[in-house]
């Protein structure tokens, strides 16, 4: 049996962060590369790269972009689809409205891009010392990673497909134990003392890795790594303890930023001077107001960023952001579904980009204790949950039916109501009579009364509304929930960690991970750090471990589909539906191809250009 580390969980957005940022910072739109940008855009991996994902171009072929537009339409109203299954994917394609006609357009450099990026200040400017999402988002603009997530026309906002960044290529040994990264010859630190434009070297990578292991609260993240060595100034080799299929994703995740050694050795941390090798040069941070950045003229992806200056606004309230979007003071912001509707009516010129969130609303309990140790009770809860009603109530009818893997991770998601799901599909459609029968069979013919925990001061109005709806739906099936609201800090520090009375039901949000392994290992493996339900199923454990070492992506995908079928039957967690996140952009924002991870400031933002902004 392969040994997996509990800490081996690729970087994730926190649920709270995702929700707060979803609209907002998510706003970070970005853009991109129209086909015409290919010449100056992200270099393609060097020939000889053996990793399949590394070979994927970062910009889609013009025909791909055009096809995406043609098939889904570019009007805002067409962007989201209520159909949960295949429509989820088409909605993702629709999320690239700027792909329309992008192929033949030459990006226009210059201008200032104004984005409502945050609702609050980045808590720390050193991303190793604070692992919360705003600190990582801040780092995404200024620091590089060896790999990054792909973005561009035809690339879904949740594709999370690793491609070379600071590394121009990388090779993976056949046994999956050794990853050799070759750094770009033209990669330089920004031209500020003490870095002064010197080359980024393999020693910088090793030094950054060692610092991460020393100081980061997330230091266990790289427990899978046995050793990191610089074999020459441009080559760094990672040796793993055992093969780990998601390792490329771990490297691409916004975690291992390549940090400026001289600065940190002089200052003790990276808080005073922000000097990276990324696309943007830090200019100023006015607390509570904005972060301003200038384009890095020496960026290794020559020609980008297209805009000269970034103005990342910190706006706490949605109403302020929406008003300024209407008044054309903001180019990009995230919007709630209710604001979206009003905006489409009042400002039809504003472009809406919708995409499924890779986020799980879910019901959990302790599966080792009654009544939830009885599979029939768990299945009854799933049958009682009216996912369609939740989509209607929470998302104006546009949403997606999540499986164990959320619909947002489109390539790994198995439609839980589709034919491929098999017999388990029935648990994802409401059937109150069947739920009552299962409860009766389990000895609860007179109904079930249980305590019910959730938190109402963290995830926003949409989540809060879901609590009320779920309580009503359970009641329909004879499940009486005695609601016990919990403050977020208490919830996250106890209930979320599985510390609650057995026999209690909990409704919560799971962290939006970027890799299916994170959902499977964290939630279903006995060593998982988010095994809230206390799942310990040897068969499932074996399935989870096997997919983690399956280096063939196709075979791994089938393994992950098998897991979704199996967990669909077991219902260790009852997974709810999810709606779209919407990003609103002004019509002059071009080449906007959103990517939803925290490092998007260095991914799609440099590819945005402005055309017609006054």
């Amino acid at each position, binding site marked *: 049996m392969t040994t997996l580390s509990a*800490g081996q969980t690729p970087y*994730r957005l*926190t*649920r*709270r*962060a995702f929700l707060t940022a979803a609209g907002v910072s998510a706003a970070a739109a970005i853009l991109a590369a129209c086909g015409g940008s290919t010449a100056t855009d992200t270099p393609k991996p060097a020939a000889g790269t053996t990793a399949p994902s590394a070979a994927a171009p970062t910009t889609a072929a013009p025909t791909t972009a055009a096809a995406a537009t043609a098939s889904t339409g570019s009007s805002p109203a067409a962007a989201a689809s209520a159909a949960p299954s295949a429509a989820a994917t088409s909605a993702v394609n629709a999320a690239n409205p700027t792909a329309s006609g992008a192929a033949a357009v030459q990006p226009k450099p210059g201008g200032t891009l104004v984005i409502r990026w945050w609702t*609050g*200040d980045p*808590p*720390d*400017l050193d991303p190793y010392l*604070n*692992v*919360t999402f705003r600190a990582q988002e801040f780092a995404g603009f200024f620091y590089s990673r060896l790999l990054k997530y792909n973005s561009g026309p035809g690339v879904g906002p949740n594709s999370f497909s690793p491609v070379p960044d600071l590394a121009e290529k990388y090779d993976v040994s056949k046994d999956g134990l050794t990853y050799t990264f070759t750094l770009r010859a033209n990669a330089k630190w920004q031209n500020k003392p003490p870095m002064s434009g010197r080359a980024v070297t393999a020693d910088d990578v090793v030094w950054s890795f060692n610092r991460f292991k020393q100081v980061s*609260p*997330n*230091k*266990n993240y790289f427990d899978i790594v046995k050793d990191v060595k610089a074999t020459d100034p441009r080559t760094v080799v990672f040796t793993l303890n055992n093969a780990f299929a998601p390792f490329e994703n771990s490297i691409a995740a916004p975690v291992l930023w390549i940090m400026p050694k001289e600065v940190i050795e002089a200052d003790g941390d990276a*808080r005073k001077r922000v000097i990276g090798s990324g696309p943007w040069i830090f200019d100023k941070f*006015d*607390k*509570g*107001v*904005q972060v301003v950045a200038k384009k890095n003229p020496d960026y290794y992806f020559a020609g980008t960023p297209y805009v000269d200056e970034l*103005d990342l*606004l*910190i*706006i*706490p*309230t949605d*109403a*302020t952001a*929406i*008003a*300024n979007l*209407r*008044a*054309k*003071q*903001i180019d990009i912001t995230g919007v709630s579904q209710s604001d979206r509707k009003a905006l489409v009516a*009042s400002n039809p010129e504003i472009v809406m980009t919708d995409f499924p969130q890779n986020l799980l609303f879910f019901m959990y309990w302790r599966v080792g204790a009654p009544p939830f140790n009885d599979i029939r009770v768990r299945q009854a809860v799933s049958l009682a949950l009216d996912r369609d009603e939740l989509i209607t109530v929470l998302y104006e009818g546009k949403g997606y039916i999540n499986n164990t893997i959320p619909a947002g991770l489109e390539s790994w998601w198995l439609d839980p109501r589709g034919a491929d799901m098999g017999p388990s599909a029935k648990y994802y459609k409401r059937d109150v009579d069947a739920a009552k029968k299962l409860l009766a069979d389990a000895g609860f013919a007179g109904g079930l009364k249980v305590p019910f925990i959730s938190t109402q001061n963290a995830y926003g109005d949409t989540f809060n509304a879901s609590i009320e709806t779920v309580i009503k739906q359970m009641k329909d099936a004879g499940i009486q929930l005695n609601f016990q609201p919990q*403050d*977020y*800090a*208490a919830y*996250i*520090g106890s209930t*979320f*960690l599985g510390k609650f009375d057995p026999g209690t039901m909990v409704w919560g949000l799971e*962290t939006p991970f970027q890799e299916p392994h994170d959902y499977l290992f964290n939630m279903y493996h006995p060593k998982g*750090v*988010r095994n809230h339900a206390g799942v310990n199923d040897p068969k499932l454990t074996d399935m989870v471990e096997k997919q983690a070492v399956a280096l063939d992506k196709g075979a791994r995908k089938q393994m992950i589909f098998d897991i979704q079928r199996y967990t669909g039957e077991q219902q260790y967690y009852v997974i709810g539906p999810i709606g779209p996140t919407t990003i609103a952009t002004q019509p002059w924002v071009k080449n906007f191809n959103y990517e939803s991870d925290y490092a998007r400031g260095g991914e799609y933002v440099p590819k945005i250009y402005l055309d017609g902004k006054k």
Partner: protein
Amino acid sequence: MQRYILRRLLLTIPALFGVTLIVSAMVRLLPGDAVTIMLGDYGQYAKDADDLRAKLGLSQPFQVQYVKWIGGIAHGDFGQSLRDRTPIAHELAIRLPVTFELGLLGLIVSLLIAIPLGVYSAVRQDTLSDYLARSAAIAMLAIPGFWLAILAITVPSIWPWHKWTPPLRYARLQDNPSANLKQMILPAIILGIGLSGSIMRLTRAQMLEVLRQDYIRTSRAKGLGERAVIYRHALRNAIVPIVTLLGLNMAVLISGTVVLESIFVLPGMGRYLLDSLNSRDYPAVQAVVLLFATVIIVFNLVVDLLYAWLDPRIRYS
């Protein structure tokens, strides 16, 4: 008078001490701490969390943390933020002028609205104007500031002829007075409106009482102009309780800035307090509350001293 002021100032010390002690204790009663928030989903690594708590001094007993903090205050050191280890005094120095300016402008606006309206309403008692003014006062009391603020931001942004919103990027008064006032005026008006309802009603009530006094009749009988009667004799005698109300409203004023700073994107103390509370940044919360408490106490002392100036019959000894 000097002894009185000295005595009042000395009395502020135990008051402030009590406030900081209560706030320090209460903020720690909130579930979670700065480490819980900072680590978020990483909090399952108990050892890392404990290490971080030790590093930040949170593993020490409350009384030790408090004594250290209050000792620092005595030396002018507000301590460091738990979030990013920046000096809290630096944050306060940046943010206090923002809140002070907003509060002062709000106060001025409230007086400009409330006093004339209250006087007018009293002089025109039981006329249509009086009814309208009293209704306006009730509306000003009843309408939440945050709602008014959102309305004030949203409506101009959908005007068909000229879309407008207040500037988003805060400019300091000393750097760019024009830009600063453009950003400040709208929240100041909304803050002032919120305060003016109660002041207007009290002004009216006091004026009605004073206007029935014999000396007012005498003033008119000896041929004094109505304007002089109202403003020199009636209003001056009616204003002492209004000044008292201003002192009491200082807390309302401060709490109003918390919401308005968020909506109008002003980097003031209110937002800092909210952020600090949400991240359980104890030293920052304590410092802001200490500052707010000081402002309230000092303002009320000034109000007390104003009594003597407004009403020569009042003597402090």
